[in-house]
């Protein structure tokens, strides 16, 4: 009898201990010190203070049918990777249980266990075996894997002599020939160049058509929309939305916007060293008046206020703003590097402006990512943290508005038609 579900999670929870208490570099000396302390009176409070805990996952329950392709989305630290690690049995849940029916293939990275000293041939068998393939299965697919990776003549060369491109191709080729009933994939798989990403997604599509169950973790909304039919939204370790992928992506982007007040000082979804932060964003028209919306075809000035943690000047600065539509698809990027030739030094606090003389966006809501680099180091990267509402304007100077069905799709391009017969 076939089971009704492929994956069933019931109140899966995971508790992590933070701080020095459980770090990998905890030494015997520390343990001795804490065990001595434990005998002293009043040590309990001390322990509670130093041993801070947090729930990476809290009572997450869902059921996935065989053949479903489900995207798991959420911000950094929402528990996506923890969920994947629990389902792939890398780490155990603190509470709750999960059941899976089928052979599991989990791809948290490509090339896990590749050994640089071993040849391509040896690594195919080792890596395949690590990913859960049977020996004869690997032997059967061996030629196919080698052909897919396009490394025939280097098959007996140690992989440490491979170019990085060859290495990744081989690693992906092995992973691509995995044929589990349940595939758990992390977005780290989508690293590499654009061609490789495309190959990845193509293979995932192929796999999904073969009727396998896929759980795909990502915060790349475009990839999720293209691949998945259903989505799970994780927020702070809790499953908040479970439904059609479109509505889940909408909820996710909305949850980002909820935090995207123009005040960014405590916006969480950001990366970078953080010595310099964008503190707030304002939109201005050409005369410097603050505005709420951008207007199609009109000038738009985006003002970024920033502050550094110290008072030193900031050498070699680069800023960029990336524009996304309301489904998170990338539209275009405005980078200071493209338009300013010489290195820029900024004072430790102030504001910078990006001027778009003729806003090429139709009426809709857009998302912006902000990026700030000082001396070749990423200081702040606010990911899709700012919302830009745009209202219709006379982009083409003809008084005509962009057609309804095209609104919010792509960008507006200035153009002409020669129509004389």
């Amino acid at each position, binding site marked *: 009898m076939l089971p009704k579900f492929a994956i069933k999670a019931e109140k899966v929870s995971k508790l*992590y201990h933070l701080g020095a208490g459980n770090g990998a570099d905890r*030494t015997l000396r520390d343990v001795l010190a804490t065990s001595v302390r434990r005998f002293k009176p009043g040590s309990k409070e001390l322990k509670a203070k130093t041993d801070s805990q947090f729930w990476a996952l809290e009572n997450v329950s869902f059921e996935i049918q065989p053949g479903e392709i489900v995207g798991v989305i959420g911000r950094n630290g929402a528990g996506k990777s923890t969920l994947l690690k629990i389902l792939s049995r*890398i780490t155990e849940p603190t*509470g709750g249980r999960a059941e899976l029916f089928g052979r*599991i293939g989990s791809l948290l990275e490509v090339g896990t266990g590749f050994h640089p000293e071993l040849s391509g041939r040896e690594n195919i068998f080792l890596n395949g075996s*690590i990913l859960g393939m049977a*020996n004869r299965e690997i032997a059967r697919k061996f030629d196919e894997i080698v052909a897919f990776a396009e490394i025939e003549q280097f098959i007996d060369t140690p992989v440490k002599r491979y170019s990085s491109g060859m290495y990744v191709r081989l690693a992906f080729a092995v992973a691509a020939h995995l044929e589990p009933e349940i595939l758990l994939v992390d977005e780290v798989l989508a690293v590499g160049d654009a061609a490789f990403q495309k190959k990845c997604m193509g293979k995932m599509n192929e796999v999904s058509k073969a009727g396998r169950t896929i759980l795909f973790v990502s915060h790349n909304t475009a990839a999720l929309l293209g691949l998945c039919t259903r989505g799970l939204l994780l927020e702070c370790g809790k499953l908040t939305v479970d439904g059609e992928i479109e509505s889940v992506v909408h909820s996710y982007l909305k949850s980002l916007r909820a935090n995207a007040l123009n005040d960014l000082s405590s916006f969480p979804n950001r990366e970078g060293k953080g010595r310099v932060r964008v503190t707030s964003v304002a939109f201005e028209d050409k005369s410097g008046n603050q505005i709420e919306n951008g207007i199609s075809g009109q000038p738009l000035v985006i003002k970024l206020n920033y502050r550094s943690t110290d008072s030193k000047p900031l050498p070699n600065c680069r800023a960029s703003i990336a524009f996304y539509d309301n489904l998170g698809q990338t539209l275009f990027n405005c980078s200071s590097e493209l338009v300013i030739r010489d290195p820029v030094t900024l004072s430790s606090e102030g504001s910078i402006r990006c001027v778009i003389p003729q806003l090429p966006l139709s009426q809709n809501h857009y998302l912006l990512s902000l990026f700030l680099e000082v001396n070749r180091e990423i200081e702040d990267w606010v990911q899709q943290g700012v919302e830009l509402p745009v209202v219709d304007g006379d982009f083409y100077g003809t008084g005509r508005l962009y057609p309804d069905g095209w609104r919010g799709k792509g960008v507006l391009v200035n153009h002409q038609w020669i129509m004389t017969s």
Partner: protein
Amino acid sequence: MSSIELAKKEQLGGIQPGQDAEHLPPHIVIEPRRLLGKADLVELWRYRELFYFLTLRDVKVRYKQTVLGAAWAVLQPLFNMLIFTLIFGRLAKLPSDNIPYPLFAFAGLLPWTFFSNAVGAAGSSLVGNSHLVTKVYFPRLIIPAASVLAVLVDFAFSFGLMVVLMAIYRVPLTINLLMLPYLVLVTVTFAFAVGTWLAALQVKYRDVRYVIPFLIQFWMFATPIIYPTSMLPQQLRPLFALNPMAGLIEAYRVALLGGINHSTFNISSLLLVGGITLTLLIFSAYSFRRMEKMFADVI
């Protein structure tokens, strides 16, 4: 969930394969668990091919890009034997129970080199394979087990050298040789038990990395390798009986070189060594299982 319910489920353990694991999709239950059970053994069996490939990897990688290659497996104990013969045999004139000192030393170094290399390799194996531990699932016990087995290949090579030495010195073969399979089994098991426990400990306490070399060195001098057991004062011997390596090495000499000194060797001490090893193996596997669930989080 009440603690009783939880305990019940823990007993069920992880994998519950269907009637025909090859054809029906496997049924996997993930939940917190603690006990060492039959399920763990079934799981180990299912991953036997990975065990084979990891062992193969360790063997292949060890002597890659060396000129002499696998010859090092023989040269290491050979050089040790020569040095020991020179210093302890010739200069310090340590007794060797009327056996030529090189033969005496090598019969001890053969199991000892295996043991120390296996404990060293297995002890660092989990941390050395942290990229696997954090990215893929398989029974973690395979990692130290593969390290030990890979070292066993070296043991086989140096055993060949032992045979050559025995031929050179014209050592007669005796019925004592029949003990050998038991001795090798116990030595491997003992090295695995010690190495596995140290490996699990090292995941959390990196101090273990620095402790292992000293432990091995001290242990070597506490084991009759360069000196015969007969040199030990009578009152210390019960203490040495607790060191399985002492009993094992004495037994290797008896098995390989023949002749039984009944004051230092008897069958009951050999059984005691087996008993200690088995106890340690159970303790080691249990504590490994207990610590295993935090490996991926802590490593």
